[in-house]
C-alpha cells in the first residue's frame, strides 16, 4: 500500500507525526526559538503549496510552470483587501481562494486541448503576465515598491502575534488541504484524474468527461495556491512582485519532483527536506555565495530526472 493511503488512516503513522509537529514550538531552543519556528512555518507553507501544485502535474500529468501565479493572486487579493479595508483574515481568505480558483478556471479553459510542452509554455507565460501586471499597475499594487504593513492574521477578533500562533494556523491549513487531497485521491474524481494522466484518449473513450475533470483540477490547484498566498501575505506582512517570480514555480516543482510526482507524502517530504535546506544554506554559505544557492536546486532537478525520475516515493501504478 502506498504511504498516501495510510497517511490519514493508519493511526500508528499519523499520530506520532502529528504529536511531533504539535510540540515543536515548545521544544527548548534558546534564542534560536523564533528563528526555528519561522523556518518551520515556512516549511509548512511550502507543504501547502506543494500539495496544490501536485494536483495538476501529479494527478493529471500536465506540467504547470506558472503555479506561482495563483500564489501571487492569493497574496495580493488578501494583502490589498487587508491594507485598504482592515478586514479579518477569515473574510479575506475565502475571497482570495475564490479569486484564485476563478483564475485557475479562466487560465485552464482555453488550454484544455493543449498537451505537454504547449500547456507548460502557456502556464509559464500566464505567470509572467501576472508579474508584469503586479509590477506595472501602480495604482493597485504599488508595483515594484511592494505592499508594506499588512496586518497580522487574527482569530476571534484577537491578533495572532506570537510565532507559535501563526505556526499552528498554517498547520491547520495544511491539515485541511491534506484532508481534501487525500479524500479526493481515492474518490471517483481522483480515479478520473489518474485515468487522464495515464492516457487521456483512452479515458475519454471510456466515458470520462476529460474537460470537466481537468477544470476541477485547475480550480482546486489554484485555490490551494491562493490559500497559501493569503496566509503568506498576512504572515510575512509585505508582498512584492518578485516574490512570485518564475523561479518560485520551479522551487515548488522541485519539491514534488524530489518526493515523487503524484505522491502526497512525497510532496510533504520534498518540502521538509528542501525548505530548511535553503534557509540553512543562506546562513552557512558566505554572503557572496548565498544568492547563488539555488544552483543546487537546478542540479538536484537534473540529477533526480536522470536517476530517480519517479522521486523518492514513487507512486505505484494502479
Amino acid at each position, binding site marked *: 500500500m502506498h504511504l498516501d493511503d495510510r497517511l490519514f488512516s493508519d493511526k500508528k503513522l499519523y499520530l506520532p507525526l502529528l504529536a511531533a509537529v504539535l510540540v515543536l514550538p515548545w521544544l527548548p531552543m534558546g534564542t534560536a526559538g523564533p528563528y526555528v519556528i519561522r523556518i518551520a512555518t515556512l516549511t509548512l507553507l511550502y507543504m501547502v503549496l506543494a500539495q496544490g501544485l501536485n494536483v495538476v502535474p501529479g494527478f493529471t500529468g500536465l506540467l504547470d510552470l506558472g503555479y506561482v501565479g495563483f500564489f501571487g493572486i492569493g497574496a495580493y487579493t488578501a494583502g490589498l483587501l487587508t491594507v485598504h479595508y482592515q478586514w479579518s483574515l477569515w473574510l479575506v481568505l475565502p475571497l482570495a481562494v475564490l479569486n484564485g480558483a476563478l483564475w485557475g478556471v479562466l487560465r485552464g479553459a482555453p488550454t484544455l486541448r493543449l498537451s505537454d510542452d504547449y500547456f507548460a509554455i502557456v502556464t509559464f*507565460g500566464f505567470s509572467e503576465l501576472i508579474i508584469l501586471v503586479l509590477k*506595472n499597475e501602480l495604482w493597485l499594487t504599488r508595483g515594484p515598491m511592494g505592499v508594506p504593513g499588512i496586518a497580522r492574521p487574527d482569530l476571534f477578533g484577537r491578533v495572532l502575534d506570537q510565532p507559535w500562533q501563526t505556526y499552528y494556523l498554517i498547520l491547520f491549513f495544511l491539515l485541511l488541504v491534506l484532508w481534501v487531497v487525500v479524500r479526493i485521491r481515492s474518490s471517483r474524481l481522483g480515479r478520473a484524474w489518474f485515468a487522464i494522466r495515464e492516457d487521456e484518449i483512452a479515458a475519454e473513450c471510456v466515458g470520462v468527461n476529460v474537460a470537466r475533470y481537468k477544470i476541477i483540477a485547475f480550480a482546486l490547484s489554484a485555490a490551494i495556491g491562493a490559500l497559501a498566498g493569503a496566509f503568506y501575505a498576512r504572515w510575512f506582512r509585505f508582498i512584492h512582485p518578485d516574490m512570485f517570480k518564475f523561479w518560485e514555480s520551479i522551487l515548488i516543482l522541485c519539491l514534488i519532483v524530489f518526493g515523487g510526482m503524484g505522491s502526497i507524502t512525497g510532496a510533504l517530504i520534498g518540502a521538509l527536506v528542501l525548505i530548511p535546506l535553503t534557509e540553512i544554506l543562506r546562513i552557512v554559505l558566505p554572503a557572496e555565495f548565498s544568492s547563488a544557492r539555488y544552483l543546487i536546486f537546478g542540479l538536484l532537478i537534473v540529477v533526480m530526472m536522470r536517476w530517480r525520475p519517479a522521486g523518492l516515493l514513487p507512486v505505484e501504478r494502479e
Partner: protein
Amino acid sequence: MLNALLEQSSLFLQQLVNGVTLGSIYALIAVGYTMVYGVIQLINFAHGEIYMLGAFLSFSLVSGFFGIGLPFALAVTIAVLVCALAGVLLDVVAYRPLRKAPRLAALITAIGMSIFLQNLALLIWGAQIKSFPREAVPAFLFAPALQFGDVVISWLQIVILSVAVILMVFLQLIVHYTKIGRAMRAIAQDQTAAALMGVNVNRVVSFTFALGSGLGGVAGILVGLYYNAVYPTMGYFAGIKAFAAAVLGGIGSIPGAILGGGILGLAEVFGGGYISSSYSDGIAYAVMILVILVKPTGLFGRLSRDKA
C-alpha cells in the same frame, strides 16, 4: 506643423532601426530553439543561458577577468567556440540519457539546467552589471555610421544586422545543401526511419546543438556590446522572447524563427515607444500565448499530429 511631422517621422525611422536590430538578435537566438526542437522535440530552456555565457565569456576574455586580456577578435572567436561546445555538452550530459524517457522529464531537466547555469554565472561573475571596457573594443563600433537629420544608425547596429543576415544565409546553406543538413532534416521528419537508414542520430543532434549554441553565443556577444551590459539574468529574458519568436514563426521552422524574431523585435520597440514602455516585455508573452491557443503551428509551422 511641418516640424511636428518631421519629428514624428524621424522618431518612426529611429524606432524602425532599433526594432530591426533587436529583431535580428532575437532571430539569432530563436533559430537555436527551433533547430533543437526540430530534431528532438525538446524546448531547450537552457538555450538562453548559452547566450548569456557567450556575453560573459567574451567580456571576461577581453577585459582580462580570467587574468589575461586577449585581442577582441580572438576573444570573440573563443567565446563562440566555447558556447558551441557547451551546447554539445549540455545535450550529452543532461538530455541524451533521457531520449527514451517521457518528454516531461526532458523538459524539467532543461529547466533545471537553466537554473543551474544562471546561478553558476552569478557565482562566478556576481550580480553586478558588467560593461565591456571601452579601450578593448574596436572604437568604430560605438561611432555613428549614418546620420539623417535626427536618425542615427551606429556601426554596431549595422554589424549586428549584417552578422545576422550572413549567419542566416550560411545556416540555410548548411541545412539545405550539405550532407549533415540533409541528415538533420531527415531526423526532424522521422527519427527512427532516419536511424534505420544509417544516419548517426547522436552525431547529428550534437551538430545541431553546436550550431544553435554557437549562434546563441554570437547573439550574446552582440547584445553585450549593444547595451554595454552583461549580467546573469540576461539570458532568461532574451531566452523567453526568442522562444516566443520561434513559436510565432512556427517552432521547428528556421525561416519561421527568423521572421518571428523580426516581427517580435519591431513589435516590442514600437509597442514600447508608442503604447506603453512598461508593458513592452508583455508583448512577447501575449504573442506566445495567443499563437499557441489560436494557431499552434505558427506562421510556418509543420507540426505533425503527435507534436501538437
